[in-house]
């Protein structure tokens, strides 16, 4: 209970600092030489927190398609959450498969692991349009590649990395004495995998899955921005940012939406952790 209250307290503190700086700070921000060290405090640059909040209940625009902002953000958030979920599932699957491969064959680990680490230095925002172009080439039968699938691919690209690293460490984690015990029972590699290595890897897998969920959301939003995917929160962030000069408070609404999506994703993995608590008995809390 105390933790929840203090957590909320922290958010309140943040709001107080925001408003205090806005009230006391110079309009052009604190400038040292040429460099703006602290932000500008105009309503354009730093809208009041209550303006941000109230804007949620206003309309998105004045045209025929205008909705309450909160509804628009909510729908876009749900859409993004769905795409992230697909990306997460694909990334987790790929990550686990790679980890199993690397655990089985030391040569595979030596060959593949450096490339897995390298893969994360690739700027996805540049790759996203490429993926869409590739996807549009794929057509078989009734299946056509939709734009959201390109986004999910990018999300899975970010998600598979922590899972492959964490799962590998987890699969390698059982004590030598346990591995030798299974060997003395004449149990083959596959059954050892399911009976020993996978259960032993749960404490390592869960933080990796949580990181993968956050990454999947981030990857989804980045790709949505890059591809301009309709219906996603990423595109909404860009659209509203472009209208910032007229409507600065609205810019913040989809940002909060994106944060909410990330928190829901992390919460889901935490739930998963509760379900798997039997395999976490030896864990020392961080």
């Amino acid at each position: 209970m105390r933790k929840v209250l203090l957590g909320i307290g922290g958010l309140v503190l943040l709001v107080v600092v925001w408003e205090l700086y806005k009230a006391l700070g110079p309009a052009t921000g604190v400038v040292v030489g040429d460099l703006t060290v602290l932000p500008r405090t105009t309503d354009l640059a730093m809208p009041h927190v209550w303006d941000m909040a109230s804007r949620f209940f206003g309309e998105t625009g004045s045209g025929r398609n205008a909705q309450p902002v909160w509804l628009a953000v909510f729908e876009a958030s749900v859409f993004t959450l769905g795409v992230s979920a697909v990306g997460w599932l694909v990334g987790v699957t790929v990550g686990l498969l790679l980890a199993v491969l690397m655990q089985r064959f030391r040569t595979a680990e030596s060959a593949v692991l450096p490339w897995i680490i390298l893969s994360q230095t690739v700027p996805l925002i540049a790759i996203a349009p490429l993926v869409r172009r590739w996807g549009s080439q794929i057509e078989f039968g009734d299946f056509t590649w939709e734009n959201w699938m390109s986004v999910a691919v990018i999300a899975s690209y970010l998600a598979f990395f922590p899972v492959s690293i964490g799962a590998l460490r987890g699969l390698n984690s059982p004590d030598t004495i346990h591995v030798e015990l299974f060997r003395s029972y004449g149990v083959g590699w596959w059954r050892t995998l399911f009976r020993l290595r996978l259960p032993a890897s749960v404490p390592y897998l869960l933080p990796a899955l949580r990181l993968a969920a956050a990454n999947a959301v981030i990857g989804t939003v980045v790709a949505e921005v890059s591809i301009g995917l309709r219906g996603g929160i990423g595109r909404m962030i860009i659209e509203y940012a472009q209208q910032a000069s007229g409507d600065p408070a609205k810019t913040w609404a989809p940002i909060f939406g994106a944060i909410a999506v990330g928190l829901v994703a992390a919460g889901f993995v935490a739930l998963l952790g509760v379900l798997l608590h039997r395999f976490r008995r030896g864990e020392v809390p961080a």
Partner: protein
Amino acid sequence: MRGQAGTLRTVLAPVLLGLGALLIWQLVIVAFEIKPFIVPGPLAIGSEFGENIGTVLQGALVTGGNALVGLVIGGVLGILFAIVAALARVVDELSAAVIAALAVVPIVALAPVLYTMFGAGAETARQLVAAIAVFIPVFINTLRGLRQVRPVHRDLMHVYAASAWQTTRTVTVPGALPFIFTGLRIASSLAVISALIAEYFGGPIGGLGKSITSAASGSNYPLAWAYVLGAIIVGLVFYCVTLAIESFATRHYKPST
């Protein structure tokens, strides 16, 4: 298990895999006559990279420079804040919600608002984006490390009637060093990526992100890919340097009794 054969394998295997992949890539391009706008072949990218090495380097310096500033600022703040959070539970609990939110916010989302807050003419917004991206993993990993004091060391400090500050200085922080470096290593390539992504949202000319977009909009795809290659190299350099520093600083940290 290790020894000559092992080290050979560790070096040779990934290199062979990489070369093999490049070979297959080039063959596929040629065999299926794939147009550059879908994906250029490695040879084409390589030649563009070589021809434009000057501009690639310039862009790398801008993006890399922003990433470095972000890494330093975010890293220092992350470590300091983690020390405070480890010493004072209140700070930790107050900041928990804010940290959790920051950890899931796609930095891209903050880039536009940061440009309005700090002005689109300077590199500050990009450096801040990188700093925020760095702060989170460094803070989380450092905090975990600060909480990992081994019971025997904890008892030892208690027996010496050491003050909280003495304990932090002599045992907790040095003991957390491996974790701090893990965080910095994770953050290093994040810093580069974030600095690059921030360039997509505005700001002054300069930086690999800007180069990628201008090459792509000019339909010069091999050149765009060459800039992407430049970005990958910058990220790799950051990662390898932090890895080297980590290995050196933690060389005596094998688990002892």
